[in-house]
């Protein structure tokens, strides 16, 4: 929800916002692999807004893969969660915007992350808590990387989310083929065997991403595996 005096930003503005942080037209792959997924989530899926960051009924987006958060900050700035003027100080001593996000410093950021493998466990707890408090409309979306899935903590969370039928939980895996040992049979299969509904999708195709995120219709947790070419940062 835009404040009246703030210019509204679209997807085409994100590159310029990223440049305020990187100072370079060519962006690091780890920063931009998430860009389209984040944009689709904040533009079309999540029921969140800067004026309701404490609303108990808001959807929760948990960025578990806290590395390379420039795309995240760019989207949050485009959606007016934080001032565009904060972006250039990225990583500075007085800046709220670190190389890994801190929920206590940035409005709208639901978890502090950076150490890999924490977001999915926190998301399971959040999904359980929303169910216990009767916040049935609020969805939890957690973003992890394919390499991050190597952390064993994710296996614990994937199993339990499946067994407890956490239909209010969606995991989006950014698969840019960076896992060192790989995932024979694909990532979605690992979730499917634990009882999740799954979608594989082109991580740059906004309409396909929207369809994948809205495909969850039952009481199973849902995973969207967003495939992104590691060689072609946009």
């Amino acid at each position: 929800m835009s404040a009246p005096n703030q210019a509204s930003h679209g997807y085409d503005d994100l590159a310029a916002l990223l440049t305020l942080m990187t100072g370079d037209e060519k962006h690091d792959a780890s920063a931009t692999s998430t860009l389209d997924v984040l944009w689709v989530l904040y533009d079309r899926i999540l029921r969140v807004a800067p004026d309701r960051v404490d609303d108990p009924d808001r959807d929760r987006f948990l960025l578990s893969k806290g590395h390379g958060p420039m795309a995240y900050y760019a989207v949050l700035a485009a959606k007016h969660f934080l001032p565009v003027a904060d972006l250039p100080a990225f990583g500075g001593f007085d800046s709220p915007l670190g190389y890994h996000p801190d929920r206590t410093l940035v409005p709208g950021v639901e978890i502090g992350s950076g150490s890999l493998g924490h977001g999915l466990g926190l998301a399971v707890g959040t999904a359980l808590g929303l169910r216990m408090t009767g916040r049935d409309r609020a969805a939890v979306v957690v973003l992890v990387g394919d390499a991050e899935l190597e952390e064993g903590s994710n296996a614990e969370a994937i199993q339990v989310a499946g067994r407890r039928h956490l239909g209010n939980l969606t995991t989006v895996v950014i698969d840019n083929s960076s896992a060192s040992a790989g995932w024979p049979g694909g990532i979605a299969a690992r979730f499917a065997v634990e009882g999740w509904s799954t979608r594989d999708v082109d991580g740059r195709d906004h309409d396909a991403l929207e369809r994948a995120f809205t495909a969850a219709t039952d009481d199973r947790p849902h995973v969207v595996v967003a495939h992104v070419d590691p060689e072609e940062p946009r």
Partner: protein
Amino acid sequence: MSADTATTRTVPGENQRDRFYRLLPGLLADQPRLVAVLAEISVNYLEEVPPSIADRVVNVGIREQLLVGAAGGLALTGMRPIVHTFAAFLVERAWEQVKLDLGHQGVGAVLVSAGASYDWPEGGETHFGHRDVALLDTLDGWTVHVPGHPDEAEALLRAALPGDDRVYLRLASDSNRLPRDVSDGRMRVLRRGSRGTVIAVGPLADRTLAATEGLDVTVLYAATVRPFDAETLRTTLDSPDVVLVEPYLRGTSTAEVTAALRGLRHRVLGLGVGRNESRRYGVPADHDRLHGIDEAGLRRAITGFITEFD
């Protein structure tokens, strides 16, 4: 006990952990914000809970990382998680989750451990938990309770539930004969003397009193060790020689005493569980003796310390 921390009736032979399990269903029923998060350990005690609270007993299975991570997520939604397993698994195995999924997120939980340092010596080193309080000392904002009696454990648990802060409640099988008033987090004066102060923590109070019988020392009792009650130590201090008697890693609170007595020339002796792997089994009394915190060992060490410069 003050009225608002009144405890339930006592069951003969009941230890701190038994009391915790007996209380938990009623607490969950009375306080809708509470959720018990378990990792198989002790889950059988809660199998018969009424359906109305069953959804707030979350057993994540043998997954300690998820145990603490899920507690962090639950706290983010405003719930108050009571997280329980053995000390070694609760504080050590999921250490980064304790650090990041609670502290770094700026949320809290009540971590309730069982097993203490070596409540199950037959189990050996894998189940010894004497490093827990020292580990939590590396983090910010933890309150640490070490009750010395089931009534104290109950009072401290009840007092921790309304908040949103980070609380560690360390339950032991061993207890003192009678409970003491621990409601304000302050140390209690058990005996006054003039040749130094002995601080007895939790279940070691009775034994410390017996070990110092006839010695001219002040004996203080602490069931809450973080925050450390520096004020009572300073205001009761006659001679600046302090002995810590702690049921966990030896020297854990030495830095707290040093801070409390800053500006005073003083001496500190830390007694407790040694850091060497013992690789021994047996019964708790064997390990008390091994670490010199049985009654005779305490008397020897304390007497030696206060008479060192006679």
